[in-house]
């Protein structure tokens, strides 16, 4: 916990090559730019949300090389050469929904929508690993994602709905 000078000589920017939703982006960033700020402010992909910026709320969750992680706690330079999937990349095609997105709409698993990208990322990972999760597994999977609107029950319902294949994907 050093109390160093607030602004040492500005460090060099770094060049990164990050694949986001299947598209490769080359950009120059300051090392202290977090992955979520890179996605939102540099690439303009504003689907991922910033709620706490310190590893508490899960609104910024993305898939990093397939695993859900919090993009506020990774610097963009650390994701150099890696592949990121954001909420914008979850649907199979433009204008369509994934079964989970469809189930979220059907079960009203959201209200303000701010936590939704992180919830969807967490639940997509869950269903990819466990196609038939019970309620406990669902609650464990979204344990790192806060929601202030729903009380979580409808989110659990939506994941069960998607797992049961009971939604017609209407995009």
């Amino acid at each position, binding site marked *: *916990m*050093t109390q*160093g000078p*607030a*602004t*040492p000589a*500005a*460090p*060099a920017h*770094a060049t990164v090559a990050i694949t986001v939703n299947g598209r490769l982006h080359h950009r120059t960033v*300051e*090392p*202290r730019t*977090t992955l979520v700020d890179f996605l939102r402010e540099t690439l303009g992909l504003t689907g991922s949300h910033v709620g706490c*910026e*310190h*590893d508490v709320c*899960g609104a910024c*969750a993305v898939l*990093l090389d397939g*695993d*859900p*992680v*919090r993009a*506020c*706690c*990774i*610097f963009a*330079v*650390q994701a*150099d050469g890696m592949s990121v999937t954001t909420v914008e990349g979850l649907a199979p095609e433009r204008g369509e929904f994934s079964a989970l997105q469809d189930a979220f709409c059907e079960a009203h698993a959201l209200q303000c929508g701010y936590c939704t990208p992180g919830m969807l990322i*967490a639940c997509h*990972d869950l269903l990819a690993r466990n196609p038939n999760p019970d309620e406990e597994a669902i609650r*464990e*999977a979204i*344990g*790192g*994602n806060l929601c202030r609107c729903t009380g979580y029950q409808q989110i659990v319902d939506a994941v069960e709905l998607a797992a049961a294949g009971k939604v017609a994907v209407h995009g």
Partner: protein
Amino acid sequence: MKAAPFAYMHPESLEQALEALTQHGADAKLIAGGQSLVPMMAIRLTRPACLVDVNRLPELRGITAAGPQHLRTGATTRQRDLQEHLELARLVPLIGAALHWVGHVQTRNRGTVGGSLVHADPAAELPLAALLLNARIHLRSQAMGERTVQASDFFISPMFTATGETECVTAIEWPVWDGPGIACAFEETATRQGDFAIAAAACQLQLDAAGICRRAAVGLGGMAGTPLAFPDLAGKLVGQRVTRAPARDIAEVAVRRTDPGSDLHADPEYRRHLAAVLLTRVLLRAAATAAPALVA
């Protein structure tokens, strides 16, 4: 909530990483999972001038046998990989029991075993597990080369370990308890599931066929500047049945040796009370798991 500026290095080999540490000393900080470091940087509780990223070093990753008595986990092995490793769950079940309380899926996907130990939050779960089993921590630096520190000598004070400024934790070797009748238990109370513990308790026991304790380890987290283990108290369990009375006795002696802090969530008295309750519970639970028929 943006980190203070820093320079970033991502060495391609351990040698390069150690070279960077040698060069920059106290100004440099290793980053592995970053699940504690990055939030602290965001709040500017810490502001390293240089981050050395060891995520890309395959030699620091993986779970392998290290002789018949130990299991070796590379320092940057992700917590989720530990959780999902079947052999590890069989040989060192305490790691999985501890990880149940660590963060969330998304943090465990990044958080590493070595990072957690070297971060050394006094209320963190993996340091308590490492201390309880007295794991061997492997360190390397250019100046000192390879060396090994027992967990009992590793944790020094809050966020401070035996790791030198230019050293990197490379691996942790976890003692494997052999034979039948082994069980462990880990419990904690936290403000929210996944947060650091207000108080945590853990134990590992081996009972014989008659339900008599043959080997024991007990410890507490969040109760002092480091996790605490109590080998002498554990030794008192050996040769007897682990029932409520001895469990409670040990717990009460143990908490008298703690020095818990005070914060918004709990004062020292409540923490001691909690720790005694939790330690009693883990002992009874582990005993029931190790020899269910005998403890009923």
